[in-house]
């Protein structure tokens, strides 16, 4: 069960980040030329590979309890940030993530920037693509390495991420447009729930607490986080409705 949960979490988290990276690379490629966009993508991939080669083996030598404490704390902080945004989006307090709108904005900015050539590539297109892939890729690496090492199986987490890469890159090459039909908001909600669940479980365990039922209690924590999130969405939706009604009355 935990293995399935691990692969699914890594897959979903990676897919969300890769969809965002794809949008940036597409905007860079269409506005500034594919040569600079692909050069940026390649350079970022090399930088990410170096980060994995440096961090991966280092994580495996840290004692598991210390690793779970640090990883659990970081995942919990990450998860709560994702979950907060997801709850705000689902309740209407924050605009939904719209890949088409982001693509249009990136494209317009890329088209209006001045052209500066360095080493035969357009510098704006290169840096836009490089930064986009590097930043989104760092999050993927963080999630895969921390999930994998804390659960004792980096290859399983990497398999989830690789599945996401094949799927997103394949569909991206096929449609050559931002993947607006991907249910990204729902996926972000699910990732927030999973990161928070693993974060609660590992940070408590790393701090020395023992879960009743051991690893099986992960399912209980998952159910708890899902119910809490849905309850918060419901409460905030009601609050927003009341605010809108009050504003209508005042107007």
């Amino acid at each position, binding site marked *: 069960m935990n293995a399935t949960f691990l692969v699914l979490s890594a897959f979903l988290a990676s897919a969300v980040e890769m969809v965002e990276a794809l949008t940036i690379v597409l905007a860079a490629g269409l506005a500034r030329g594919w040569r600079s966009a692909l050069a940026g993508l390649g350079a970022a991939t090399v930088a990410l590979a170096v980060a994995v080669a440096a961090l991966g083996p280092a994580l495996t030598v840290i004692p598991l309890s210390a690793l779970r404490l640090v990883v659990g704390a970081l995942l919990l902080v990450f998860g709560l*940030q994702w979950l907060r945004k997801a709850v705000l989006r689902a309740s209407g307090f924050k605009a939904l993530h719209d890949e088409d709108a982001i693509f249009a904005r990136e494209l317009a900015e890329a088209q209006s920037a001045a052209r500066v050539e360095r080493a035969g590539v357009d510098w704006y297109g290169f840096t836009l693509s490089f930064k986009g892939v590097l930043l989104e890729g760092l999050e993927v690496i963080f999630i895969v390495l921390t999930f994998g090492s804390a659960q004792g199986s980096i290859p399983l987490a990497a398999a989830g991420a690789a599945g996401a890469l094949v799927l997103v890159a394949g569909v991206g090459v096929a449609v050559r447009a931002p993947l607006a039909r991907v249910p990204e908001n729902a996926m972000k909600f699910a990732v927030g729930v999973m990161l928070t669940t693993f974060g609660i479980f590992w940070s408590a365990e790393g701090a020395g607490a023992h879960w009743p039922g051991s690893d099986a209690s992960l399912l209980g924590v998952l159910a708890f986080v899902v119910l809490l999130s849905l309850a918060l969405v419901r409460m905030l939706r009601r609050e927003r409705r009341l605010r809108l009604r009050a504003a209508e009355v005042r107007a």
Partner: protein
Amino acid sequence: MRHLRSFGRFWWDFVVGDDWLVVALVALAIGATAALAHSGIAAWWLMPLAVVLVLWVSLRRAVARG
């Protein structure tokens, strides 16, 4: 110096994000869990409870900010 500052800024944004209070409350909750666990008291319930508080406080702050 400028590069160092932007490097620090990047990691702050990457880890802490929009609400520093989340990090502070999570650190407090983990510390309290460790203190309870090392005193021999069951402490597994504390982190889920802390998450309810942290998420609620952080959401209230985000809604108030608009």
